[in-house]
């Protein structure tokens, strides 16, 4: 694999500061009339991965493509520089996003049914502002409530490729019911 291609891809990832998909990379590189295949790019990414073994960065594949991460071992020192850049997420908000993630698309009412408490406009708005959820439609019932789904940004922010990478939702079968309940209580 030629070095200049690897370097070009590295430059793109560095400069983008956001995930790039394989085809995005290909289109940019082929802009000057090149004929680079997706497989070449994939191979180059693998080479880069190897190259980064003894460095502070790594390639991470997330929902929106590939991006460069600073390895987690450096996070505590970086945290000092960028302290509290992201706001904390409350327990209630975490429950809300979890319900949306597993049951999507859902309405606010669906979330309220599960949580047994009203979901504030503020928490929905805060998830929308964070771009973790989006309105994916409306349900065809009176009032036409908005349906919410999670976004790629949500997965990106958690270093995940797809929704199936989330922790598994425990299933309650009749057999396991007692076991599960004894865990609960």
């Amino acid at each position, binding site marked *: 694999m030629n070095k200049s291609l690897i370097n070009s891809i590295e430059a793109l990832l560095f400069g983008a500061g956001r995930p790039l998909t394989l085809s995005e990379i290909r289109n940019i590189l082929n802009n000057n009339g090149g004929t680079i295949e997706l497989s070449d790019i994939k191979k180059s990414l693998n080479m880069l991965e190897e190259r980064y073994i003894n460095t502070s960065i790594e390639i991470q594949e997330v929902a929106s493509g590939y991006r460069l991460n600073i390895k987690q071992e450096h996070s505590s020192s970086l945290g000092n520089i960028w302290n509290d850049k992201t706001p904390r997420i409350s327990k209630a908000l*975490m429950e809300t996003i979890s319900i949306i993630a597993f049951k999507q698309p859902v309405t606010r009412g669906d979330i309220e049914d599960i949580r*047994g408490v009203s979901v504030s406009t503020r928490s929905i708005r805060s998830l929308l502002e964070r771009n973790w959820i989006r309105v994916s439609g409306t349900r065809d019932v009176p009032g036409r409530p908005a349906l919410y789904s999670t976004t790629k940004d949500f997965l990106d922010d*958690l*270093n995940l490729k797809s929704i199936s990478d989330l922790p598994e939702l425990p299933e309650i079968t009749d057999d396991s019911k007692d076991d599960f309940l004894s865990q609960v209580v």
Partner: protein
Amino acid sequence: MQNNNLAQLELPTLLGRQFEDIPDDLFIPPNALEICLESFTGPLDLLLYLIRKENINILDLDVSKITDQYIEYIELMDSLKFDLAADYLVMAATLAEIKSRLMLPRESFDEEEDDPRASLIKRLQEYQKFKNVSEKIALLPRVDRDFYVASAQLPKFEDQKNKEVLITKDEIFDSVLEVLKRPNYKDNHQIDFEELSTKERIQMILDLLSRTNIISFSKTLKKPEGKKGIVVTLLASLELAKDGYVELIQNKSEELFIKSSRRV
């Protein structure tokens, strides 16, 4: 980094340690109430906590005991946050309903189906699922908290309003000189009183006219007042003419006459 994750969760977590903060009996000092309210993210949450505290299996829920405690919690909340308390009240009503039904003698044939606790248990289980998984998701590495993106991306600049400042050193020198040359505005200066008042002159002319009906302009003047006197008198007579009190008459001679219009 894992420590950070844990700190991120609000207390108390269901399976966590912070329960010690809440007294075993139900007496809660008023100032702890806020904390207590923030501890539970919903009525089901509180219910799960109580069930756990009583150390009983959900399936043989001791409804009466739980209900009593639950209602006591709500009484505490009630005085504090009505909005929130309303959500909890629904649950209390459900519990009370279940409790009362259990206390009534059963004529039941199919007990299983009619167990009033069943639907509540189902809801609790459903909620518990998401509660558990949300705690796990909260622990997943999160961008800008647990890991950072490596990027040499250009920072997003604000609109560059002062993009280019074209200025020469001579211009700077000149403007400094200009500032230095500026008069000192802090100097004292005196404001003179108005020596001759138009108002006063109007009154004077009216007084004169009340006696003579018509008067030549030159007769209203006082010599020592000089030009200023003439100007003030002219202003005064124009003012009077404007308001219709006098007529100004000038014949072929240069003399101007002021004539009272009311006396005609």
